[in-house]
C-alpha cells in the first residue's frame, strides 16, 4: 500500500500511521451524552470508500485526509488537513 503525500510524493504505507476514520465534527462540550457516544464509539465501517486520517510520521509529519477503498486498499486521494 502506498499513500500519495501532497508534500513528499507517493510513499510506502510503512512511513505513515493512522488513527482511523476521519471523524464527524466534534459535538459541543455541553451536547447530550448520546451525541458524545455516537461521536466516540459508533462507526460507519463501510466496505468501500472510507475517509480516514493518516499522519506522515516518518516524513513531513503532515496530517492527511485519505480516501481509501477498504475492499482493495487502493488509495484514491490524500489531502493535507488538520485533524
Amino acid at each position: 500500500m502506498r499513500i500519495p503525500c501532497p508534500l513528499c510524493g507517493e510513499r510506502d504505507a510503512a512511513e505513515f500511521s493512522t488513527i482511523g476514520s476521519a471523524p464527524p465534527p466534534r459535538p459541543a462540550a455541553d451536547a447530550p451524552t448520546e451525541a458524545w457516544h455516537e461521536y466516540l464509539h459508533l462507526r460507519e465501517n463501510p466496505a468501500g470508500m472510507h475517509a480516514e486520517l493518516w499522519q506522515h510520521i516518518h516524513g513531513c509529519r503532515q496530517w492527511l485526509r485519505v480516501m481509501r477503498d477498504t475492499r482493495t486498499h487502493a488509495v484514491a486521494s490524500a489531502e493535507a488537513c488538520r485533524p
Partner: protein
Amino acid sequence: MRYSALALLRHALTGNRSWTPAWRDPAPKPAYDTIIVGGGGHGLATAHYLAKLHGITDVAVLEKGYLGSGNVGRNTTIIRSNYLLPGNTPFYEHSMKLWEGLEQDINYNAMVSQRGVLNLCHSDSQRDAYARRGNAMRLAGVDAELLDAAQVRAMVPGLNMDSVRFPVKGGLLQRRGGTVRHDAVAWGYARAADSRGVDLLQNTEVTGIRVQSGRVVGVETTRGFIGAKRVGLAVAGNTSRVAAMAGLRLPIESHVLQAFVSEAVKPMIDTVVTYGAGHLYVSQSDKGGLVFGGDIDGYNSYAQRGNLPVVHDVMECAVQLFPAMSRLRYLRQWGGIMDMSMDGSPIIDRTPIEGLFLNCGWCYGGFKATPASGWCFAHTIATGQPHALNAAFRLDRFATGAVIDEKGAGAQANLH
C-alpha cells in the same frame, strides 16, 4: 455415524468405502424457528448448544461461503483464559472448561492440546503487571504460574534470553492454555448440530433483514426469503454490514490480521510463547510448521489480506525472540477480517429489534471463546435474557460507560 477407534478399524478393514458425509446439504425450508447468520465457529457452536441444551432444533445456519471459510479457519489456534477484568475472566474460563470436554461432547477429534501459554516479561514493571494478572486469575479459580528467568530458560530452549535490549526476566504461564485444530472445531460443531436436525445452508448469503413493527420476521438471502421468529448474527468481520441491514450502527471497525506458517522442522517449541516487548505469538503445529502472528495491520479493511509493513514487523519480532527462526523459510501467509470493538471486548446481547440477537466484537481473540460464545449466545436466544456469564457483554455499555477495556486503550479500535 459415531466416530470411534472401532469404527476406524472396521472402515479400514472394508477399504474405507462406507464412510458417510459428515453433514447433510439440505434445501432451505420456507421458515425456521431460529436462524443463525454466519457459519463460523461461533454460529455453529450456537446451533449445537441451541439444539443440545435448549431443545431448539428447528434451526438453520446461513453461511455465504463454505463452513469455516471465515476466521475460524484462519486463526493461529491459541486458547487461553488469562484475563484480568471481572466481566471477562469467568466467561473465558467457562470456555476453557468447555474446550476440556469438547471432543467427548461433539464426538470429534479437535486436537485440543493443553500445551500451555507462556507470556514473557522483559522488565520489572512488566513482571509486576503479570503478577497482578496471575493473582486476579487465581482469585477467579483460573490456573496461573509466575516463572522466573531460569524456569523459562529450562522450559523453552532456543529463546533469546539475554538480549541486551529486551532480556527475558520471566513469564506468566497458564498450563491449561494451548492450541486446538481450528478447522476441526468448525467441522465438529457442524456435524454435531446437523445430527440434531439443524440445517446447515452453505452458499446462502444474507442480503437483507426483514423487520415488521419492530420485530424481526426473517431474512432475504441469495436463495430467497427465509422466515424466522428469531435471528442471531454471528458474522465476525462482516458484522457492521449485516447489522446495517436492520438499521443498526455499531461500535465496531473491521481490521485485517495476518498469520504466518514456516516450513516444517523437527520439534522446536512445545508450548505457546508470546513476546512481551513486541507483538508476537508462536507455536508449532503437529506437522512441524511454526505458526505465528502479531498485530493487526491497523487500518480498516475487508480485503482478507494484509500489507508488508506488518509482515516485516512480525518477522523482526520472531527473529529477535528465536534467533534460529532466521534460518527458516516461511511457507504461507494469509489474513482474516476482525470485528474490532471500541473497548476490545465482545458483545453478546439482544438488540433494540425484537427477536434479533447480536454476537460480535471478538477482535483477534475470538477463537478461544468459541465454545462459551456459542453456549452464551444459545442461552440468550433461547431465553431472551443474557446468562450471568455474558451479562457484561452488553451492546449499550459504550453509551453507559460500563466498558470492559483490558488494555485501557480507549475508544480507538486499532489499539486493542
